[in-house]
C-alpha cells in the first residue's frame, strides 16, 4: 500500500523517563521496586471532576462509567505525595534543566514561565485523579531524510503508577506507586510524518537525541511511544503504549490496514442496508442446560442483540489477528463482559442447537448476526449498548479513538479521544520562570549536534558524505567512535556498514539484534583486528551472538568454526598451489587471480581476503622460484 497515495498523516508522542535523583514533585528516589517489597497498600475510588473551564471531560466521564476500585502498593521508597496525602513540592529543577536541554536540542523555543497543570486521568494510574504536566517548549523540529518534521510541544510531566496484574477475581485494579512521579518528557511532533518507515526513523532520531544528553533512563519501559495516525476518509486515532521501537512501522502499517478495511466494511454494510436493533434480550433460558464453561462461569446469564445484515462482517479480519468482532469485543470487555457472535458459533462449548434457538429468538436470517455476552444484567446491558453504538458507527464513520498497542503490532480499543478541556492549574505548585542566564548556561553545555558530528567524522575518519550522515544519525554513533579509537587497523567504512546496514539486514531476518550490547561489538572488532576471522563473517558472528549473547566472541568464533589456524591455512593454500603447479608455471604471477577463487571457496569468512591474497602470492612466488631453479639444473 502506498502511504502517500492514501494520505497518511502521522505524528509521534514520545515519553522518556528522566534519570533524575528525585521524583518530579517529591524527594523520593526514581527507582523501580520489586512489587513484593511493597510495605503497605491502600484502596481508593476516583470521580470525574469539573475542569477549569466548567466542562466535564468526555474521556474522564467514560472512565467513571466503569466505576472501579483501585488498590495502590506503596514502598519505603514512596511518600505521602504519591499517596495523594500531601501537597506536591516544587517542580524538580534538575528535571526542568533536562527538559530545557532536550528542547534546545530539538530547536524548540522554551516558554518564559512554566505552569504546572492538572490533566484529568481517572483510570487510577494517578492517585490524585490527574497527572501533573507542564508545557516547557514549543515550535521546534528536526530534519529527516524524508523532510522536516515539526516538534510542536515538549512537556515535563510525572510518570503514572504502573498497573500490576489484577488481584484475584475482584474488580479492583492494582497499581504500584514506585513509578508514579518519575519525571518524564513528552515530545509531540506535528503530523508531518508521511510513511511508516519515516515514523520509525523519526522515533529513532528522537530517541538518540534524548540519549545524547546522558540524563535519561534506559532500558525496558523507560521510553514509550504513542502514535497519532489518520488517512484520508479515515479518522484520527491515537495508539498508545508502544514500547518497542521496531514495532512503530508495523503499527502504522496495521492501522492503515485497519482503517482501509473499515472503510470497505462500511461500504459493504451500506450495500446490504444493514441496521442494528436496540432491543437487548435476556437469553439465559436457552442456556439453562448448557455445557459452555464461559456461560456457566457467568452464572448462566446471557444477553444478546441482533445486528441485521452483519452476517460474516464480525468474522472479517481487519488487522493481522483481529477481526471486526474483536473491535466489538473490546467494548464489551470494558465492562468485564466476554463477547461471542454467530459468525464464530458454535464454539466455546455452545451447541448447534443453542445457536439455532438464539437466531430464532431474534427471527435472525442468514444475513444477520446475533451477538451475545455472558454476564449478569448490570454488566451485560451497558456492554451491549456500547457494542450497539460501535456497530452503528461502523455504518457511518471510523470512530476517533484512543487505542492500545498490542505486542503483535495491531491495536485494541481503549477509550474515546480525550477532549481538550481536561486541564486546570496545579495551584499547589508555583510557576517557574525560566531566566535567560539559565538557558544560556544549558546552551553552553549542549551535547554535540548531529550536523557537527557528521562534519567531524568526515574529517577524522575520512568517511564519505553518505556514510558520515548515516552513522552520525545512528544511535550507535558513540560505539562507532570507541571502536575506531580502540582498533586502528579496522576500516571506518566496515564499522559503519556493520552498525547500520548489517544490523538493519539482520533485523529484517527477525534476528533480535537488541540483545547485542556494546561489549559484543567491541570484542568482535578486537578479534577482527587480530585477524582471528575474516570480515565477511561479521554478519554470521552477530547473528550467532544475538542468539547466545552470554557467550564470548572467542568461543563463538570457535563454535561457528571460523577459527582458522594460520599454519593450516598456509598448508591449505600451499596444497592448492602445488596441485596446480603446471598452471602456475605456465601463467606465472598471473595465476594468483584465478587461484584466489579456488582458495576463497575453501576459506571464505574464515580468513581475511587480503591475508589470503598475500599468502597466495607468496606461495605462487615460491613455486615459480622452484620452477626456475629446476630449469637451470
Amino acid at each position: 500500500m502506498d502511504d502517500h497515495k492514501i494520505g497518511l498523516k502521522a505524528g509521534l508522542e514520545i515519553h522518556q523517563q528522566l534519570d533524575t535523583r528525585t521524583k518530579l514533585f517529591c524527594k523520593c528516589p526514581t527507582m523501580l521496586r520489586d512489587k513484593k517489597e511493597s510495605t503497605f497498600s491502600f484502596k481508593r475510588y476516583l470521580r470525574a471532576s469539573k475542569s477549569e473551564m466548567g466542562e466535564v471531560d468526555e474521556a474522564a466521564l467514560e472512565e467513571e462509567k466503569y466505576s472501579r476500585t483501585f488498590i495502590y502498593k506503596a514502598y519505603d521508597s514512596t511518600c505521602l505525595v504519591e499517596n495523594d496525602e500531601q501537597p506536591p513540592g516544587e517542580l524538580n529543577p534538575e528535571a526542568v534543566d533536562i527538559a530545557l536541554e532536550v528542547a534546545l536540542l530539538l530547536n524548540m523555543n522554551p516558554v518564559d514561565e512554566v505552569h504546572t497543570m492538572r490533566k484529568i486521568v481517572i483510570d487510577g494510574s494517578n492517585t490524585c485523579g490527574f497527572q501533573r504536566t507542564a508545557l516547557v517548549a514549543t515550535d521546534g523540529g528536526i530534519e529527516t531524510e524524508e523532510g522536516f518534521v515539526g516538534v510542536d510541544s515538549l512537556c515535563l510531566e510525572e510518570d503514572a503508577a504502573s498497573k500490576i496484574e489484577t488481584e484475584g477475581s475482584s474488580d479492583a485494579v492494582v497499581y504500584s506507586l514506585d513509578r508514579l512521579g518519575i519525571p518524564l518528557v513528552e515530545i509531540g511532533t506535528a503530523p508531518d510524518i508521511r510513511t511508516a518507515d519515516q515514523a520509525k526513523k523519526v522515533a529513532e532520531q528522537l530517541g538518540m537525541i534524548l540519549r545524547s544528553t546522558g540524563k535519561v533512563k534506559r532500558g525496558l519501559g523507560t521510553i514509550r511511544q504513542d502514535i497519532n495516525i489518520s488517512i484520508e476518509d479515515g479518522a484520527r486515532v491515537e495508539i498508545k503504549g508502544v514500547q518497542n521501537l521496531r514495532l512503530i512501522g508495523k503499527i502504522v502499517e496495521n492501522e492503515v490496514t485497519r482503517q482501509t478495511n473499515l472503510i470497505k466494511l462500511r461500504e459493504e454494510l451500506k450495500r446490504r442496508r444493514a441496521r442494528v436493533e436496540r432491543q437487548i434480550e435476556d437469553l439465559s433460558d436457552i442456556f439453562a442446560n448448557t455445557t459452555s464453561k464461559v456461560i456457566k462461569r457467568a452464572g448462566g446469564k446471557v444477553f444478546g442483540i441482533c445486528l441485521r445484515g452483519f452476517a460474516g462482517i464480525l468474522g472479517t479480519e481487519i488487522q493481522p489477528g483481529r477481526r471486526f468482532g474483536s473491535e466489538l469485543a473490546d467494548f464489551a470487555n470494558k465492562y468485564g463482559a466476554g463477547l461471542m457472535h454467530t459468525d464464530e458459533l458454535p464454539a466455546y462449548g455452545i451447541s448447534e442447537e443453542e445457536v439455532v434457538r438464539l437466531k430464532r429468538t431474534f427471527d435472525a436470517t442468514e444475513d444477520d448476526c446475533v451477538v451475545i455476552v455472558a454476564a449478569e444484567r448490570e454488566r451485560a446491558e451497558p456492554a451491549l449498548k456500547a457494542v450497539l453504538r460501535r456497530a452503528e458507527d461502523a455504518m457511518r464513520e471510523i470512530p476517533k479513538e484512543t487505542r492500545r498497542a498490542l505486542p503483535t503490532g495491531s491495536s485494541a480499543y481503549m477509550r474515546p479521544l480525550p477532549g481538550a478541556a481536561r486541564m486546570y492549574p496545579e495551584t499547589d505548585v508555583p510557576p517557574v520562570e525560566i531566566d535567560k542566564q539559565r538557558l544560556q548556561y544549558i546552551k553552553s553545555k549542549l551535547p554535540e549536534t548531529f550536523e557537527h558530528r557528521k562534519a567531524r567524522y568526515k574529517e577524522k575518519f575520512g568517511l564519505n558524505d553518505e556514510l558520515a550522515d548515516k552513522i552520525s544519525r545512528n544511535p550507535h554513533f558513540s560505539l562507532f567512535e570507541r571502536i575506531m579509537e580502540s582498533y586502528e587497523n579496522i576500516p571506518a567504512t566496515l564499522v559503519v556498514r556493520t552498525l547500520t546496514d548489517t544490523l538493519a539486514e539482520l533485523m529484517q531476518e527477525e534476528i533480535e539484534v537488541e540483545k547485542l550490547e556494546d561489549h559484543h561489538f567491541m570484542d568482535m572488532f578486537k578479534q577482527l583486528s587480530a585477524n582471528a576471522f575474516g570480515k565477511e563473517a561479521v554478519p554470521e558472528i552477530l547473528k550467532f551472538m544475538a542468539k547466545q549473547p552470554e557467550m564470548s566472541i572467542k568461543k563463538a568464533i570457535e563454535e561457528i568454526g571460523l577459527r582458522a589456524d594460520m599454519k593450516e591455512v598456509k598448508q591449505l593454500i600451499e596444497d592448492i598451489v602445488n596441485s596446480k603447479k603446471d598452471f602456475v608455471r605456465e601463467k606465472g604471477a598471473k595465476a594468483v587471480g584465478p587461484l584466489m577463487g579456488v582458495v576463497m571457496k575453501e576459506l571464505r569468512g574464515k580468513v581475511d581476503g587480503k591475508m589470503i591474497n598475500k599468502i597466495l602470492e607468496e606461495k605462487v612466488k615460491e613455486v615459480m622460484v622452484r620452477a626456475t631453479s629446476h630449469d637451470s639444473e
Partner: protein
Amino acid sequence: MELKEGDRIRIKKKTDSGVVVYEGIVMPTASRNIVIKLDSGYNIGIRPENVEIEVISGVEALKGERGSEKRIRKVKEDLPILSILSTGGTIASKVDYRTGAVSPQFSTEDILETIPELGQIANIKGKVIYSILSENMRAEYWRKLAAEVYREIKNGAEGIIVTHGTDTMGYTAAALSFMVQTPVPIVLVGSQRSADRPSSDAAMNAICAARVACSDLAEVVVVMHGSTSDDFCFIHRGTKVRKMHTSARYAFQSVNDIPIGRVYYDTSNIEKIRLEFFSAYKKRGDKELELGLRDKLEEKCCLIKFYPGADPAILDFFITQGYKGIVLEGTGLGHVSAEWIPGVARAVKQGIPLVMTSQCLYGTICDRVYDTGRDLLHAGIIEGDDMLPETALVKLMWVLGQTTDMEEVRHLMHENIAGEIRGRSVKEKVHLEI
C-alpha cells in the same frame, strides 16, 4: 496594552531563531508575565518583552463561573430530611485565580450536584451560612452557626450536616457540643484533599456523614476518613476530636477516647452503608433530649502554650488586656515553671479562672504528684482533667457565658457536660497509620 482576563490574544514573540506565535486566553496571574491558556489546555507565561500582542476577541466568558442549574428534586417520603449547613472549607472548593489558591466557593447546590448520592440517603435541604476558610472562624460565628442549627432542628430537620474546613473543625464541633442540646445527629464534615480533584475525600466523607445524620445518634460528632483508604470513616465525639495531621485523609483522631463508631463506605450500595458503634451514645428519642440552645459565650478567653523559659509576663499581658479566662497548655501532667506561680495566684485572686491542660494531649492532668503541681493547685489552678486544650478553651468560653461565679465555674469545668471528660482512663488505641 490593557489586557483583560478572558481576552483571546495572539502574542508574537521574537526569538533567536525567528518569531514564535502563541494564541490563547488571558488568565489571571500574580506574576508580572502574561499568562495565557493555550487551546491545548496548557497555561504558559510569556515575558512582556519583545512581543507584539493582538487581541483577537474580547472576554470569552470564563465558563464554569455559571450558576449551576437548579434541578427540582422530588421529596422522597420514606427518606429523612437533612439540613446541610455550609460554612466553607475544602469540602466545597474552587480555584481562586487571583491568588492561585484553593478557596471555598460552592453553594450547597454545588455540593449536591457533585455528590448526587446524598439524594439517595435523604431529602437534602441546604443553606450557606458562611463561605470562609476555617482558620477565619471565630467565636461569634460559632454562635450564629449554633443558632442556625437550632432553627433547622426546630423546623423539622431530622439530622444536621455542617460542612466545615478541617483546620478548626474540632473547635467548632466542641462549641456546638456545648451550645446545642440536640435530639438529632449534628455531624461536622470536611475534606483533606480539595473537592476539585477526582481523588477528593469530600464525597465519601459527606456520604458517610449523611448516613450518620440519618442514624439514631443524638450528639455532635465529626465524621471523617478513618484510614488512608476509601474504606471507612470514624465517628468522633465533637469534644474529643483533634486534627492530628496536616494533610492526610486520616487526620482526625479521637484523643483520650475511642471513636463512637465507624461507617463502612461501599460505593456499590449507598443505601445500605453499615454503621458500627464502639461505645454508648445518646440516642434519638431519649426522653431527656429536649432541643435547647445556650449559645452565650465569653469570647475574651485565651489559650497559652507554655515552653521552657517562657516569660511569666506573657500571663500578665493577657490579664492587663482584660481576658476573662485563660487555658494553659502546660508540660507533662500539667506544669508551668515555678516563675509562673505568683502570676497564676494573682490572676485567680482577680477572679480570672485558669485551667491547666497538657501539651501531651494524651493522658489526664494531675497536679498532685510534683511540687510545682501542688503549688499550682494551691495558687488556684483548675485541672482540665483529660480535656483537649482546645476543647477546654471552648468550654471555658461557654462556662463563662453561663456564670461568672468562680466556684460555679470550677464546678462546671470539672463536670462532664458533652463527653469532654471521660474520667476513666484506659489504654489508648491510637489510630495512626504507619
